[in-house]
């Protein structure tokens, strides 16, 4: 294997993440007392710098698209790059949210875990080989298990940590069994070489579908689609809230990046007309998407806990995003990437407000949000933006994203799926507006909101403002984001 400069460029964000992690490990022990918050500042600033450096120096171009890097282990294309930037961005915002957390913020290890998970996710988006893919998935998962159970004194956190690990390890083992059989039947571990094996009809349809089902267990767990969603509400409720924000956005997007590359490349999703295999697995996923949306939204209706509500809402959002994947078209893939971008910004903002509220009041119950508009008008307005965007209201990002996803479904004649999606958006609107009703129309007990203000610390304010501006930008200046998503989608559909 000969050294090329593409090798460094293709893993530039990961190299920088590793360097940042090492710097943090070395410096952090010297910070005592109040200075401990510096670790969070360093991580957040470092991640934003990594993003800037990668965008400036490490962009893929036409010549690197098809180049095989590291013996075909990873790809250096727009799909990988766009997802990487999303992960690094959400890690940076999560670092800001972690800074003022009672326990996470004072421990350097939590930031190291965050960086390690981000590194794994970056590789998940880029990997083009089953070996690399497995390693990347585990690199992303194991630090997240630790983070979920990080507050060891808290019974709920440790419980959610062990539940997450047991579910995660089991589903990973099933997926890995699928990988091993896939390797055996196709004789290769490279996704792009795998495609040739499957396309030439080496594998009978039943066997290929069986392998697909085994693999979808592991990835379905990552993106929390029904029936692999059981862990999500428990883990989201118990884990430290900043971790949940990261878990429900970046980790989910990483799962979708893998789903898209693995199935569209490896299981002939990009052929036209569709083969039987592609048609079958897309139909299975379409049905799962419909069930996921409906179940997530219906159960969310009766939740009284904010984190649990957001957990079910994020399950429902996996369903919407899945519509983009099962369309198996360029528009579908574009809409998936766009949806994930809008979803990451929106959900991080929703969790950010929950984190800020929980830090002061110690509560995650929705009824305690009463009078928030008077206690902290700023927080209430960001919550309004985030929840309306989750519900899919213009002019916020969530609206445009939903339109594209449904358009993709209609374009390939999956009208039933689009109809279910739209009905679900209406159900979703109800419970999102319900929360806003509590915030804006209800008063606190005793009606003395002025004496119970909710101060926002600077990192929270910064993170929330960045996210709200992002939501508005994605929702109004659509063209550039759509363009980037389209570049990413083309990597899977153009040869």
């Amino acid at each position, binding site marked *: 294997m000969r050294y090329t400069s593409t090798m460094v460029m293709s893993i530039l964000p990961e190299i920088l993440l590793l360097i940042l992690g090492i710097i943090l490990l070395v410096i952090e022990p010297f910070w005592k007392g109040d200075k401990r918050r510096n670790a969070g500042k360093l991580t957040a600033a470092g991640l934003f710098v990594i993003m800037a450096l990668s965008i400036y120096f490490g962009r893929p171009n036409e010549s690197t698209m098809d180049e095989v890097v590291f013996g075909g282990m990873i790809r250096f294309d727009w799909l990988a790059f766009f997802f990487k930037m999303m992960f690094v961005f959400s890690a940076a915002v999560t670092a800001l949210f972690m800074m003022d957390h009672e326990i996470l913020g004072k421990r350097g290890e939590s930031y190291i875990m965050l960086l390690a998970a981000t590194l794994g996710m970056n590789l998940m988006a880029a990997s083009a080989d089953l070996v690399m893919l497995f390693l990347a998935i585990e690199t992303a998962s194991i630090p997240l298990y630790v983070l979920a159970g990080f507050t060891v004194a808290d019974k709920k956190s440790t419980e959610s940590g062990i539940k997450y690990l047991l579910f995660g*390890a089991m589903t990973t083992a099933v997926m890995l*069994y699928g990988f091993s*059989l896939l*390797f055996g039947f196709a004789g290769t571990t490279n996704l792009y070489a795998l495609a040739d094996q499957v396309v030439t009809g080496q594998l009978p349809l039943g066997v290929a579908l069986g392998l697909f089902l085994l693999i979808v267990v592991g990835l379905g767990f990552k993106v929390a689609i029904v029936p692999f969603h059981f862990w999500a509400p428990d883990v989201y409720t118990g884990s430290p809230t900043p971790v949940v924000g990261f878990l429900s956005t970046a980790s989910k997007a990483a799962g979708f990046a893998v789903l898209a590359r693995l199935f569209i490349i490896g299981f002939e999703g990009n052929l036209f007309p569709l083969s039987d295999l592609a048609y079958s697995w897309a139909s299975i996923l379409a049905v799962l998407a419909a069930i996921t949306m409906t179940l997530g939204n219906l159960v969310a209706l009766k939740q009284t806990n904010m984190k649990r509500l957001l957990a079910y809402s994020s399950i429902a959002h996996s369903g919407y995003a899945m519509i983009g994947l099962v369309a198996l078209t360029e528009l579908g893939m574009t809409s998936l990437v766009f949806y994930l971008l809008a979803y990451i910004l929106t959900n991080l903002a929703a969790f950010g407000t929950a984190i800020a509220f929980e830090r002061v009041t110690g509560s995650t119950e929705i009824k305690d949000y009463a009078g928030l508009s008077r206690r902290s008008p700023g927080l209430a307005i960001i919550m309004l933006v985030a929840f309306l965007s989750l519900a899919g209201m213009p002019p916020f990002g969530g609206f445009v994203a939903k339109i594209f996803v449904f358009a993709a479904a209609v374009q390939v004649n999956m009208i039933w799926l689009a109809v279910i999606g739209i009905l679900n958006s209406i159900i979703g609107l109800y419970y999102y507006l319900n929360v806003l009703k509590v915030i804006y129309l209800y008063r606190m007990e005793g009606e003395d909101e002025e004496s119970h203000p909710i101060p926002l610390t600077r990192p929270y304010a910064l993170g929330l403002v960045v996210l709200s501006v992002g939501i508005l930008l994605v929702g109004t200046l659509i063209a550039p984001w759509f363009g980037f998503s389209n570049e990413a989608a083309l990597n899977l559909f153009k040869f």
Partner: protein
Amino acid sequence: MIPLSWYLILSAALFSIGLFGVMARRNAIAILLGIELMFNAVNINLVAFWRYLDPTIMNGQVFAIIVFAVAAAEVAVGLALVISVYRNRKTVVVDDLDLLKW
């Protein structure tokens, strides 16, 4: 030479036993053991396929080595979490971990 299918049957059996263990056992450590069995079934598959397909291509072996390295890391984290749960709750039976329920 023993036919490839024997290895595959062995690994399928091992995988099923592991999966059954995960589903049926109530003790967190026993569940982790079940997961280990599933990982080992994968390893048998990988090494058998490597040997029978084309031993000059090392993908299968490399994959197997990575699988058990990662499995070890996963179990290390798993046991650490089990200990922290035990300190809090004085139990490692997953049925008793029911603070988080809808």
